[in-house]
C-alpha cells in the first residue's frame, strides 16, 4: 500500500485503520491477495510518472485558476466568432439549475427515483417541440454534426436508399463529422454524400441542380435554415416538395433561437429536424457546450428509427398521477448491441436540462424579442461593415445572426486583419478563406443579442483604422 500520511478528502476508506478492519472481515492479510486473478507478469513494470499531487483544495484551485487565467475569453474581449458555437446570453437561473448537484451527479436509478430529472428532460423535448411544431424530440446527441449524421442514417434505414444530398456551402466542421458517419465507400452501409450547388447570387441552394440530382436512389436532402453562412433558405417548402416527390426525406438543420421569428420547420415540410442545443442557455466552453437535437413527426416509422433516448410521459399506479420513462428502449444499442439503431451512450443530457430552463424563461414573447433583436443587430452590423471602404458583405440583408464579410478589395488577408483586431481586444469573424466555398479572403461574422450598437461601432471603427 502506498504511503499516505493523511486521509484523502475524496476517499473515506483512506482514514487510518479502516482498510485493515475490512481485510480482516474479508479474511485476507494483505491487499495484494485481492489481486490474485492478475498474473504477476501483467503488472506494470514502469512507475506512473505524474506531477506532484495537489491534495489540498487550495493548491488545486490555485493551479486551475492560474492556468485558466492565461486564456483570453469572449467576456473580456469583444468576439464575433460563431460557426457552430455562438455567444449568447445565459440566464443565471440556468447556471444555478445545471449546477445543482442532483442534476450534475446523477446516473440512472428507477423511473421513480429519477422522476424530477426525467420530467426536466420531457420538458426540454416538449418546449423544443413547440418551437419546431413537431411531436417527437429525442434527447440530444453529442453535437449538431452528430445529429445530422444520425438523421441521415435514419433516412437510409427508412428508405433503403444510400445517397444523401448536402449543400456545397456546408460547415466543413459539421461536414467532416457527417462524412465520418456516412463513409468510407468500402464499408457496409456506406452512404454517398453528394453536394448540391449554391446560387452564387444568393448563397441559397440551386434548385435546378437539386432537381437534377434528386432520383429514386436519394434517401434524403439536408439543408440548414439559417444556413452555415447565415443565409435564409426562402424556398424551404419548395425543397421539401421536390424531395417528397422523389420519395426522399427532408432533413433540416435549424438554429433554435431563430424560431421566435422564423417559421417552424414542421410547417414547411421538414421530415426530420436537427440543430444545436448550445444556443439554448449553454456556455460555449471551448466547444464543450455542443449538443445536437433530432426531431420528427410522431409516426411510428420515424420513431422506430431513432438511435437514442426518447422520454415519454406515462400514467402511474396512482390515479391521476404522471411519470416518465423511455419509449422504445429496446431499439437502441443498449437493448440490441450491434443490431440496434447506430449506437448510443453517455451524451449531452445535462444540456437538455439547460435548454428546458432556458426555454421556460423566455416563453413565446422572449423568443420573438430575442429573434428580432438578433436579426436587427446582425443586419445593422452587416450594413456598417459593408459601408467601410473596400469591404463588402456577401449576400447582404437576408441573414439571421451570421454573415460573410469579404476583404478581397483591401489587399489584406483575414488572418492579418484578425491579428490586428486581436491586438485591440476584438476577435474577428471565423477565417473561411481556406474553405471549399472558395469565396476569397472572407470571414464569417456572428452578431447576437449580446452585441450592442456601441460594440458594433467599436468593431467598425477599429476595422477602419486597421484598413486605412
Amino acid at each position, binding site marked *: 500500500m502506498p504511503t499516505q500520511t493523511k486521509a484523502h478528502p475524496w476517499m473515506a476508506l483512506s482514514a487510518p485503520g479502516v482498510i485493515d478492519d475490512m481485510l480482516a472481515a474479508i479474511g485476507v492479510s494483505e491487499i495484494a491477495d485481492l489481486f490474485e486473478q492478475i498474473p504477476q507478469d501483467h503488472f506494470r513494470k514502469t512507475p506512473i510518472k505524474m506531477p506532484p499531487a495537489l491534495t489540498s483544495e487550495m493548491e488545486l484551485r490555485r493551479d486551475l485558476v492560474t492556468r485558466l487565467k492565461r486564456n483570453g475569453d469572449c467576456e473580456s474581449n469583444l468576439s464575433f466568432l460563431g460557426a457552430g458555437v455562438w455567444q449568447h446570453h445565459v440566464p443565471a437561473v440556468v447556471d444555478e439549475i445545471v449546477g445543482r448537484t442532483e442534476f450534475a451527479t446523477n446516473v440512472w436509478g428507477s423511473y421513480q427515483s429519477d422522476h424530477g430529472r426525467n420530467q426536466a428532460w420531457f420538458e426540454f423535448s416538449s418546449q423544443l417541440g413547440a418551437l419546431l411544431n413537431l411531436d417527437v424530440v429525442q434527447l440530444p446527441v453529442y453535437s449538431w454534426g452528430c445529429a445530422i449524421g444520425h438523421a441521415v442514417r435514419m433516412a437510409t434505414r427508412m428508405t433503403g436508399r444510400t445517397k444523401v444530398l448536402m449543400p456545397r456551402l456546408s460547415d466543413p466542421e459539421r461536414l467532416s463529422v457527417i462524412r465520418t458517419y456516412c463513409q468510407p465507400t468500402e464499408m457496409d452501409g456506406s452512404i454517398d454524400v453528394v453536394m448540391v450547388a449554391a446560387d452564387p447570387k444568393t448563397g441559397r441552394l440551386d434548385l435546378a441542380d437539386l432537381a437534377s440530382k434528386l432520383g429514386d436512389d436519394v434517401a434524403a436532402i439536408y439543408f440548414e435554415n439559417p444556413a452555415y453562412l447565415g443565409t435564409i433558405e426562402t424556398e424551404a417548402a419548395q425543397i421539401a416538395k421536390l424531395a417528397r416527390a422523389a420519395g426522399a426525406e427532408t432533413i433540416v438543420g435549424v438554429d433554435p433561437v431563430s424560431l421566435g421569428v422564423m417559421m417552424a420547420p414542421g410547417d414547411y415540410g421538414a421530415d426530420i429536424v436537427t440543430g444545436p442545443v448550445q444556443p439554448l442557455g449553454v456556455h460555449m466552453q471551448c466547444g*464543450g457546450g455542443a449538443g445536437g437535437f433530432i426531431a420528427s413527426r410522431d409516426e411510428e416509422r420515424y420513431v422506430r428509427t431513432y438511435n437514442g433516448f426518447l422520454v415519454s410521459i406515462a400514467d402511474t399506479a396512482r390515479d391521476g398521477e404522471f411519470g416518465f420513462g423511455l419509449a422504445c428502449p429496446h431499439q437502441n444499442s443498449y437493448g440490441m448491441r450491434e443490431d440496434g439503431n447506430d449506437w448510443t451512450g453517455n451524451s449531452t443530457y445535462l444540456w437538455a436540462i439547460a435548454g428546458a430552463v432556458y426555454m421556460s424563461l423566455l416563453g413565446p414573447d422572449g423568443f420573438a424579442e430575442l429573434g428580432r433583436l438578433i436579426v436587427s443587430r446582425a443586419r445593422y452590423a452587416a450594413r456598417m461593415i459593408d459601408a467601410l471602404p473596400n469591404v463588402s458583405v456577401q449576400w447582404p440583408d437576408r441573414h439571421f445572426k451570421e454573415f460573410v464579410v469579404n476583404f478581397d478589395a483591401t489587399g489584406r488577408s483575414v488572418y492579418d486583419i484578425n491579428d490586428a483586431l486581436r491586438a485591440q481586444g476584438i476577435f474577428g469573424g471565423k477565417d473561411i478563406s481556406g474553405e471549399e466555398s472558395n469565396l476569397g479572403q472572407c470571414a464569417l461574422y456572428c452578431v447576437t443579442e449580446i452585441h450592442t450598437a456601441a460594440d458594433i461601432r467599436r468593431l467598425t471603427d477599429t476595422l477602419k483604422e486597421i484598413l486605412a
Partner: protein
Amino acid sequence: MSRLPEFHAAKWDEPVVMELGRPGGRGQIFPAPEDEVAQDVGDDLIPSSMMRKDRPVLPEITEFEAQRHYLHLSQMTLGMMGVSLFGTCTMKYNSKTSEYATLRPELAEVHPYQHPDTLQGVLSIIHDFDHILRSLSGMDQFIFQAGGGADAAYTMAIVARAYWADRGLLDQRTEMVTSIQAHPCNPATAAAAGFKVVNLPLEENGYPSLDALKAAVSDKTALIMINNPDDMGIYNPEIKEWVRVAKEAGALCFYDHANFNGVMGKLSARELGFDACMFMLHKTFGAPKAGGGPAVGAFGCSDELAQYVPCPVVTKAGARYILDEDRPKSAGKVREFWGNVPQVVKAYAWARGMGADGINLASDISVVANNYMDKRLSEIPGIAISNPDITANRMEMSRWSFAPLCEETGIGTVDVANRMADYGIDPFWMSHEPWIVAEPFTPEAGELWSKEDIDLWIDVIAKIADEARTDPEMVKSAPHNQPVAQVNGDVFEDPGKWAMTWRAYLRKVASAKANGS
C-alpha cells in the same frame, strides 16, 4: 444491521412546465434594438415566406417560477445523494472546486476558434493531462474529441478504418471480434462504422476461450475490442496471449478501459500489448455524469496509430501549445471541435488532486471495498454471485443475482431496485444486455464511499430480501416513498399512447376522449 433511515423523497406534485403561468408572463426580457439600429434596419427582418406567424406554445412564467419549478425537479431526483454503488459507472465525488473553476469566463466564455495565443491556459491543461494518461496507459497520444465512452469506441472503429484503408486492405479487413460480455457500445459502434461483428461466448471460467479467439481471428479481422476485467469482476489472465494471437493475425487491439478503477496504477495497456485504449473521464477520472453527459471518452493510441486520429490534436512546440489540424491521414472527426473541454479540466483536476499514490490507493480501496461487499452479500439468503465456481477474489465489481430469491418469492431485481429508493438508496445497475445472469445486479463501491455507507447499502438489500418473504406485495408495488408511484411501462411501446412532447400528449388524450376511452 445498521438502523435504516426513515426516508421520504420530496414530492411536489409539480405540474409539467407547459401547464404553468399566465398569458403575458415573462421570465426573461430582451431590450429593444437601439434607435440607430431600429431606424437603419427597419421592420422587414425575415422574408415573408420564412416568417413565423404562429406563437409557439411555451410557458409564460416569471423568473422565480422557473427557478422554483426546476429546483423542485432537482429535489425530486435522488441523484447520488443517497448511496449509489452503481456498477460499471464508478460513482465518485465530483469536486466542487473543479465545477466552479470551469464556470469561470476564462473557460465558459471561450470560443474554440479563438487564436491559440488566447488559449494557452486551457491547452496547457489538456496537454499535461494527455501526458498523465500516457503514463497511466503507456500509450503515445490521447485525444478528447469523443463525447463519451461509446464515442471513443467509435473513434477506435474509424481509426481502424483509416489504418486499413492506408494499407489498401479495408475491403478485406471487415470484421471486429469481441466478447458477448463487452459493453454494447463496442459491437454497436463497430457495426455503425461498417464492420461485421463476431461475438465470442463466455466459458465457465467467465471469459471466452483462447481457442474460440483463435478460431475467430483471421486475415479478415480488422480489430478486436475487449474489456478486462469484465463487469463480473473477472480478470482474463490470458489477455496477453489474446493480444499476441490477434496481432499475429494482423488485427489491431483495443482495450476498453471502462473498468479501469480496479487496475489503475497496476496495469499498463501498452505493456500488455494493446495498440489503443480509452478511459471514461466522467467515470474513472472524477468528472460528473450529469445523467448522461457531457462526457468524454479519452482515446489513446500508439505512435503508429496517432497519424489516423481525429483532429485537432493538442501538441507543444517549444513553450507554446498548438492545435494540430495537419494530419493528412486523419480518420475524420467524430464530433465538432476538440471535446468536452470542461470535463477534461475536471479530470485533470481529479488526477492532480489524487496524485500517483492517490490513484494507486484508490484502486486498492475499490478492490477491498468490493470484496468486503462480496463477503457480506454472500451471507444474505436468496442472492447468488455469478460464476460461483470461481473462488478467486473479484476485482472492483461483481455480478450478483436475485434468481434464488425470485424463485422463492417472485421478487426479482427490478422490484428490489424500485424498493431501494424507498430507503433513500440509489437503485443499482442491473446488467448490460444480454442478461447472461438471471435477475442480475452489479454493485461497485469505488473509492468514495465509507464503510458505513457500504454497510447501509448491504443492510437495505438484506432488509428487502426479508420483505420479499414477509410482504412480497409491498415490494412488488414499490416504491411507496418516492415522488411518484410505479410508472406504467406499457405506454412506452404503444404508438397510440407514447408521447415524447406535451403537444403529442394533449393530442393523444383528446383523441382517446373522442373515442370514448
